[in-house]
């Protein structure tokens, strides 16, 4: 199922993140695609690789635990039920979907006019996460 070596796992995840970024480009979301590439392809992957180097992850034997076979069965069933339900739902799809011109400009307008307050809250959340990460990572006195 997965590679034995954890760095290989992270590298395959990087490929997956970049591929999802390509899908965002196909969906006419250029800013989301760029953010996906920067945040996931750049920051998250490098951060996780860094932590892999920092913590010697010398797991003996498999990367999976004892319940992995059962989990595989249950989640294959779950995924097929989910895909079945999704494909049999009548979505109110419009004919010839096109997001129009100037996607970036209208996206920025949406973000900084209608969703300005949540944007500020998200900034505060990032600051709190930064402080929390520094607090967790400090040396004990």
């Amino acid at each position: 199922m997965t590679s034995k070596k954890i760095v290989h796992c992270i590298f395959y995840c990087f490929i997956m993140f970049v591929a999802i970024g390509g899908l965002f480009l196909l969906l006419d979301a250029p800013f989301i695609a760029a953010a996906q590439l920067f945040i996931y392809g750049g920051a998250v992957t490098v951060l996780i690789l860094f932590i892999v180097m920092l913590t010697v992850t010398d797991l003996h034997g498999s990367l999976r635990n004892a319940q992995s076979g059962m989990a595989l069965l249950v989640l294959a069933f779950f995924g097929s039920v989910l895909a079945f339900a999704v494909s049999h739902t009548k979505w109110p799809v419009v004919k010839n979907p096109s997001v129009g011109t100037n996607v970036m400009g209208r996206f920025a307008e949406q973000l900084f006019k209608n969703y300005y307050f949540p944007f500020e809250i998200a900034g505060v959340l990032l600051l709190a996460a930064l402080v929390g990460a520094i607090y967790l990572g400090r040396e004990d006195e």
Partner: protein
Amino acid sequence: MLTLNHYLILASILFSIGLYGVVAKRNILLILVSVDFMLNAANLNLVAISKYVSPEHLYGQVFAIFVMIVTAAEVGVGLGIVVYLYRSHVSIENQEFNVMKG
């Protein structure tokens, strides 16, 4: 020609893979990556439904950017916790952490 269903089925497969990783992995780092998988699937759903159901409003893209911000915060704090646990237990195997007190 790609339709909405293709994106949604891909996202549900991706979500199931992420959930499998969360349930079946021994390594905390891989569990964190699996959570990222699930959030990515949600993002893909948001952007795809936004394009195919109400393409002119771009609501899904705004929500996707918020999900990304929360993910960045989650990864930062999560990796901080992983390093902390590694220092206190000298292991990042999730079977080791079976007491609530530090």
